[in-house]
């Protein structure tokens, strides 16, 4: 079983081992933790490194071929978000707020997952298209904006229905309510686009594009060679937080647990297939699939807590961080890699070890 072997060898990489170590540390109630400033800094660092790399690659390859994958990614992300909503609302019987919040959490992208993916590919000796960093930046707010827009639509509709049931009194109050909702949406749009994650990612892409390989060589040691090491440190923190939430997983219910595993698999495999059809490379297809499979757990709470405060945050944080994130990096990433390898070399079997060997030789 090649896939099982791939998963097994992935399990023994430092990233996954440190993640599991973090979980264990949390379970034995150790006081181990990464200082707050560092765990806030690391996601920004990872985004800056991703952005710089993307910018560099884009300078080499140009943007012409970026447009179609980007539009397809946006389209798929919106489609998946709607699909998640229908599944959660109809099959899962979640309320409208939780459904939209969860749907957009799973429609959005995870920057940390993306970093782990890049490092996984590096480990396999495979490269991916640099413009995927730009797709990551664009995709980040898309699902949230749509979910928030739809939630506000649904809320104003309810308010309007209530308004009609009242005949004449307390009209002004309700009008104020509707107007508040509208201003809220434009404010959230502004906030999510100017949010730190997107700003640093786009800024780094532009700087990476400007400086090129020559300029990059002076900062390479920090933004290239230290990349995997930084992820490893962050993984300890992620493991600890996920470990602290293990008990909450029971509370989210069996439906959401299944959803948190099945949906990313479905979205990810579709992503890999679509990316292959668009002509992306082996690694690029894996990253494209990972973009669609990943759930957001750092950006999501910050955006959703303000935009859809009625939704229960422990549902979307626990499922995204406690279930989907470990599943994605441990199982789904090798799985998508195997699928992508199959699609890219239809006749050959999955020769993952050759990739590793090539790198060594």
């Amino acid at each position: 079983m090649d896939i099982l072997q791939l998963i097994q060898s992935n399990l023994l990489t430092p990233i996954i081992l440190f993640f599991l170590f973090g979980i264990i540390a949390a379970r034995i109630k150790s006081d181990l933790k990464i200082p707050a400033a560092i765990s806030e800094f690391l996601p920004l660092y990872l985004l800056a490194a991703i952005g710089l790399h993307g910018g560099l690659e884009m300078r080499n390859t140009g943007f012409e071929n970026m447009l179609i994958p980007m539009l397809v990614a946006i389209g798929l992300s919106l489609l998946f978000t709607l699909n998640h909503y229908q599944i959660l609302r109809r099959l899962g019987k979640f309320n409208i707020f939780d459904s939209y919040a969860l749907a957009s959490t799973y429609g959005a992208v995870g920057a940390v997952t993306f970093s782990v993916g890049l490092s996984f590919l590096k480990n396999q000796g495979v490269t991916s298209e640099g413009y995927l960093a730009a797709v990551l930046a664009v995709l980040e707010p898309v699902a949230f904006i749509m979910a928030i827009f739809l939630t506000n639509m649904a809320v104003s509709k309810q308010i309007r229905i209530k308004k009609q049931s009242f005949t004449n009194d307390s009209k002004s109050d309700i009008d104020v309510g509707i107007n508040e909702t509208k201003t809220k949406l434009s404010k959230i749009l502004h906030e999510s686009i100017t949010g730190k994650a997107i700003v640093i990612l786009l800024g780094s892409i532009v700087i990476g594009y400007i400086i090129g390989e020559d300029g990059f060589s002076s900062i390479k040691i920090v933004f290239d060679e230290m990349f995997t090491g930084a992820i490893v440190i962050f993984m300890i923190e992620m493991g600890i937080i996920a470990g602290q939430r293990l008990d909450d997983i029971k509370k989210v219910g069996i439906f959401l647990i299944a959803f948190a595993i099945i949906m990313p698999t479905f979205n990810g495999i579709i992503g890999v297939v679509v990316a292959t059809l668009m002509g992306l490379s082996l690694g690029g297809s894996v990253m494209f699939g990972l973009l669609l499979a990943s759930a957001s757990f750092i950006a999501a709470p910050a955006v959703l807590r303000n935009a859809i405060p009625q939704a229960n945050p422990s549902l979307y944080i626990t499922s995204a961080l406690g279930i989907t994130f470990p599943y994605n990096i441990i199982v789904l990433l090798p799985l998508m890699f195997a699928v992508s390898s199959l699609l890219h070399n239809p006749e050959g079997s999955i020769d993952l070890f050759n990739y590793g060997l090539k790198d060594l030789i």
Partner: protein
Amino acid sequence: MKLYNVKLLTITCEILAQKNIMEILTKHEITGYTIYEVNGNGARGIRGQGLQNEKNVKIEIILREEKLQDIVEEVSRTLFANFAIVLYVSDVGVLRTEKF
């Protein structure tokens, strides 16, 4: 020493509600406040561990009684239902009443 009576409004809430509170304060033309990051335990479990977004903040506002009513009303109407939040009011004495 002459002390003037004003009110101290203390709001302890999750960090993601801070922005909403700031907006309410701005709306009521309150310009002075103190904020600190805190952690603690309450109806929504232990808060302040792990992710930055799950921390709590404590906001202290010294204000005159006239504004207090409206602010407390608006905070409780818009935020109590969905956020982890505790609010209380105390009497305090200040020397320079013109500052508040």
